[in-house]
């Protein structure tokens, strides 16, 4: 399946890009994050991240569909 990833803050720096299209066998966000963390050297464990699919927060068991937009959100620091 194909997914669109957006990266922010230090995940953007680590991935060296703000977005990418990924072809993956991962079917849920947990598996997808493990794959991307290995590829890009992300050091955050999932318990420190939130995840959003298609513009809405979701949980780590979320089943993915083809062409989903997935964002792993590092701890926020606005304000």
């Amino acid at each position, binding site marked *: 399946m194909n997914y669109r990833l957006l990266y*922010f803050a230090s995940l953007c720096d680590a991935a060296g890009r703000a977005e990418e299209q990924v072809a993956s066998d991962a079917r849920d966000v947990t598996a997808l994050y493990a794959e991307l963390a290995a590829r890009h050297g992300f050091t955050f464990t999932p318990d420190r991240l939130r995840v*959003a699919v298609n513009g809405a927060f979701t949980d780590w068991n979320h089943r993915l569909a083809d062409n989903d937009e997935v964002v792993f959100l590092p701890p926020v620091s606005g*304000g």
Partner: protein
Amino acid sequence: MFAIGEAPIDVVRLHQGLEADGAGAVVCFEGRVRNYNDGRAVNGLSYQAYIELAEAEGRRIVEEARGRFKVERVSCVHRVGDLALGDVAVWAGVSAGHRGAAFDACRYVIDQVKARVPIWKREHYVEGTSEWLHPDSAPK
């Protein structure tokens, strides 16, 4: 009202937006760029947001404040992009019939925005380096 923008925050205009005949109290908070953090000298900040989700989450927070407190108007604006020392990075304002609700709602909005809205700051240090902040726990 919740908004994210690159332009400098127009505090006067936002303040006018809080006006209401029943507003006996107005409380505003300005979060400004400070010249130090965690023992290091800072000379600027850059903010990045996942705009689509940040605006949705910010609007939810404003609605929560409207439901929890007896208020007239609730507004919050957060900047993104490069900011200099003294610039207003975030502004939250509430008008209400009485001061208690105005203080409580304003505090609620800024605390929730800092904890939940997908916005990140990169600190630029006087020594020449910079880094993203990803706090372990709830921000101060």
